[in-house]
């Protein structure tokens, strides 16, 4: 019991004094990018600690609103990743997603969000190295910008 409250406190301080400054949400498709992140893990490819991954079956499932919601709730960056066009496990999902995400990508700056804070990309199950690069590069850019002060979204 006491031990519990201790850990709790330590946990709180860890998140409060914001030593881990930023929060990045990753929305991944199950078949390619999530698996790619798995392979990166299996290969012990070190990555920044700031990414939180949400698994969806397919980028076709991803509503642009998810990303905006994340920003609204305080995300400093949002990364969406799926199968390369043509490789969709469901044949067409990422083609639909590509249009929606491209539109979103183009609107992000318009909404008062730095363009570097959003990215959508394609990483296959075997591209563990690429996943490491994508995450490192993206989170790096977001870190440079630092935490977002939110006004509108």
């Amino acid at each position: 019991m006491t031990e519990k409250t201790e850990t709790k406190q330590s946990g709180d301080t860890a998140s409060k004094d914001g030593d881990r400054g930023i929060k990045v949400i990753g929305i991944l498709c199950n078949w390619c990018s999530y698996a790619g992140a798995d392979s990166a893990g299996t290969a012990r490819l070190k990555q920044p600690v700031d990414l939180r991954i949400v698994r969806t079956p397919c980028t076709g499932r991803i509503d642009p609103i998810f990303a905006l919601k994340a920003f609204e709730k305080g995300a400093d960056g949002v990364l969406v990743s799926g199968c390369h066009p043509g490789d969709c496990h469901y044949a067409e999902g990422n083609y639909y997603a590509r249009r929606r995400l491209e539109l979103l990508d183009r609107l992000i700056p318009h909404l008062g969000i730095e363009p570097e804070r959003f990215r959508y990309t394609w990483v296959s199950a075997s591209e563990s190295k690429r996943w490491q690069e994508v995450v490192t590069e993206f989170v790096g850019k977001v870190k440079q910008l630092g935490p977002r002060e939110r006004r509108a979204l």
Partner: protein
Amino acid sequence: MSERQAEIRELAKAALSEGRVDYFIGWGTGYDNSQIVPVFVRDAGEVDELVWNPLAQHNLSVYLKRKMPESPDAKIGVCVKGCDSRTLVSLLQEELVDPEQIYVVGVPCDGVINRRAVEKEFSGEVVDILFDGGRVTATSRDGESKEFSREDLLFDHCRSCRYPNPLYQDDSAGDPVPEPEGEAGPIWESLEEFEALSTDQKSARLEEVFSTCIRCFACIHVCPVCYCWDQCVCRSRKPELVSQKVEAKENLMFQMIHMFHVAGRCPSCGACDRACPVEIPLYLLHRKMNQELHDMLGFEAGVDVEAKPALQTFDVEDPFGEH
């Protein structure tokens, strides 16, 4: 103009008396001469209620959304301007309106004027607006009269209008007006000021603008291509995409949901801007959205009945997203 008004009345009269339509939706005079409102004419004898002048800003295709009107099998006559016809085309693309059930009178349009702009020229209330060619004479309740040029009072999306003649119609009220030259695709001047802002300024401006929203939902109810009605996800608690809390963030989120839902079907007809009781410049969102869709795909909403809305289809060769 008056000639077009006569045409409208003629066509409406014929349609009603021949029983081709149960009622005919056009524009008519509101509670005073400075107000034009949608009117529903149910009797051939009443077609003189129909009016056409530069105040006829309402996009009447909104009444073709299902549940609006309620009787689903009614045969409806309706007047559309160029911009209105594009929202109608969007509805037709999705087969949400049965062409067999509607009789469309296209009204070639030289642009409609912004009544609010007129009102703001007076301290008192404007009760009468008269048109004489390019001149507009407005008179306030206390008898003050002012003259304007029609040109100056046009909505800016009318100034940049590329489709002054309806793209879908059964009959036309009068001869078409000259089409503008130049490369197709809407013009975006009205955005430039906002686009020039820095990221921070943008979000500050959006916060300022959307904190005034009162969530009356006039914008989506008046939107012809927004038809979820009682099921609107912006009011749903499950799933809850947007909270009921009225605050800048949530209000903007609500608009973003609306925007993504009409993306590819919204031609920026401006109905939402005009309906907003607190004058939120919604075009900041939907015109930008249309601009980007145009850059991405050369796509314009509601110009081709055979086409599909941009986001409900795809091209394997779409020229983006390779990163």
